[in-house]
């Protein structure tokens, strides 16, 4: 077991190394130059640009740049300089990314938590009550939600739950932008929690609704398959109550396939949610990342890609360990 984990971690490191090389190569060959914006500014001299290029090491060959980057990148303890500097200003990438990490984690883990806690039980219940009114109504709702683009959903929620609700009741329930109010630091502890939630609810709900739809559909299908299995018929023929049949014999088997889905979503959490963050002006990783791509600010792009890659490696390992825990047929050798 320990041997398995170590082996997987070694493979994981090789994967990350390959990921960094491929991403770096691709970024170097996208045909842009991080200093393009400066070059097109007539007030900046050729001399200054040359100095900038030297400062960032951009005059070096690609291989050299990569080796320098990777050598610094792995020394994560050299905060905040390890991951290099952004081309857009004096900010250190490590500082920038880690600052955004908190916001992204708050939004994404809330959404994911809601999706798991609601979507999975919902799917199970739909399967148990297959073809009932509840099942028909909720699967239709899931289908509609799942087919709705996130920006429609996000803006829809803003209009109904923030704008209209405030107009009708005269009370502000939810905010449509940012993580906290500007007056946050002056608030009492209780009010701070309230303020945080008021900001969090709409963006988290937008993401969660779509995930709930996805998880419940997946979980419903998996549960139905198990409910029609031979071993469930055996369990019933033994004289077990419907409750025991479902709780003991069906659930554990029906949860196994969901693990992959959820673990990959957890891995994607750090990538943030570009569209949702943009709609709700949420200072998260997704926006940082997409802006960096547009500006050819590759130290940021590399840092985010490596973080996501790291999460994928770790979550895949955790998912495989969870498989082994739930399903005795899985062996680690």
């Amino acid at each position, binding site marked *: 077991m320990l041997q398995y984990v170590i082996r997987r971690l070694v493979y994981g490191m090789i994967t990350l190394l390959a990921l960094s090389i491929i991403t770096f190569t691709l970024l170097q060959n996208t045909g842009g130059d991080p200093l393009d914006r400066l070059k097109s500014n007539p007030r900046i001299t050729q001399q200054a640009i040359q100095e900038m290029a030297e400062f960032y090491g951009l005059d070096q060959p690609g291989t050299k740049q990569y080796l320098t980057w990777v050598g610094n990148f792995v020394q994560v303890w050299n905060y905040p300089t390890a991951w290099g500097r952004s081309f857009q200003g004096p900010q250190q990438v490590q500082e920038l990314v880690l600052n955004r990490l908190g916001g992204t984690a708050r939004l994404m883990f809330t959404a994911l938590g809601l999706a798991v806690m609601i979507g999975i039980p919902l799917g199970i219940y739909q399967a148990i009550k297959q*073809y009932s009114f509840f099942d028909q109504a909720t699967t239709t709702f899931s289908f509609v939600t799942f087919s709705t683009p996130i920006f429609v959903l996000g803006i829809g929620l803003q209009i109904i739950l923030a704008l209209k609700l405030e107009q009708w009741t005269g009370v502000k329930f939810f905010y449509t932008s940012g993580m906290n109010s500007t007056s946050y630091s002056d608030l009492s502890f209780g009010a701070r929690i309230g303020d945080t939630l008021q900001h969090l609810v709409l963006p988290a709900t937008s993401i969660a609704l779509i995930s709930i739809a996805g998880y419940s559909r997946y979980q419903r299908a998996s549960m139905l398959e198990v409910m029609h*299995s*031979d*071993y469930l*018929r*055996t*369990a*019933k*023929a*033994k*004289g*077990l*109550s419907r409750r025991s049949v479902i709780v*003991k*014999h069906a659930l*554990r*088997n029906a949860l196994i396939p969901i693990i992959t889905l959820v673990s990959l979503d957890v891995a994607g959490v750090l990538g943030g949610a570009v569209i949702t963050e943009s709609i709700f002006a949420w200072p998260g990783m997704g926006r940082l990342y997409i802006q960096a791509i547009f500006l050819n600010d590759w130290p940021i792009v590399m840092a985010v890609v490596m973080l996501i890659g790291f999460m994928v490696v770790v979550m895949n390992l955790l998912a495989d360990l969870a498989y082994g825990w*739930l*399903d*005795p*047929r899985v062996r680690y050798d």
Partner: protein
Amino acid sequence: MSEPLLQVSNLRTFFSTEEGIVRAVDGLSFTIHKGEKFGVVGESGSGKSVTALSVMRLIEPPAGEIVTGEITFKGEDLLGLKDEEMRKVRGGQIAMIFQDPMTALNPVYTIGNQLIETIMLHQSVGKSAAAEIAIQALDDVHIPNPKVRMEDYPHQLSGGMRQRVMIAMGLSCDPDLLIADEPTTALDVTTQAQILDLMLVLTEERNTAVMLITHDLGVVAGFCDNIQVMYAGRLAERGTTDFIFDDTLHPYTAGLLGSMTRLDEVREERLYSIRGAPPSLIDPPNGCRFRSRCDFAKEICTRDTPLPREISEDHWVACHFAPDLDLIRVKGEPVG
């Protein structure tokens, strides 16, 4: 014959599908006595398994429904029992084992866990006592090292071993009736014979009645006292094993016998095969359901449904012309 254990009368179990109502079992009556080995034979779709599931009341609503009929077990009307009371019958007094041992056990629990669960459900014993009973049950079905095997998961056992576990589970609560739905179909031939022998010995020892469902007349021949041949949800013929094999009355039974390979004769022509396919059970027409495949069908077979008649004692047949047909040319000379 000893006293009746299970009496099924006029059972009709239908399934609603998008194409219409499937009359899977359509007016079936039979009795199984204490300790009797009762074979139910027929091809796929003849209603054998649905009959068994009806007795267990495991027909899943809303698609499937027992429309009419009475099922009396030890004098008790099973269809009138509350769900809770029925659960005590299931697994306790009537146990069932299924066709495919590879999928009939839950893959995520040890066989010990699954055995103990059944035992504790029907007997008021603690966990350690249940484990003792479970080990004994595994020993009874000749599983080597039963104590060690208790910790095994189903995937660690072969198909034959798993079916032994299913038998152990079925018999662990000493039921009065064991329903075995094609218990050997998924196993290879040598294992089949071992499993059948084992089932026979164990149920004889305990005087357990067995309802053995199969499509293979060879399987029931050495096992059953009485055989019921079903066709398209109805009775074709029922009688003692000797009657069915030697004094065959129904053309369908004769066809099944004629299509068996036999070791006691040199065959020069092809094996007999019943032509055509079974009729759809959605809105089946009046008359004999076998007529389109029958070499002896006449006009009356289209018009009137043949009702089961008792030709000689305990030998029932649903054919207008029995016992006047010359079935030898279909089924071949009697054995021996």
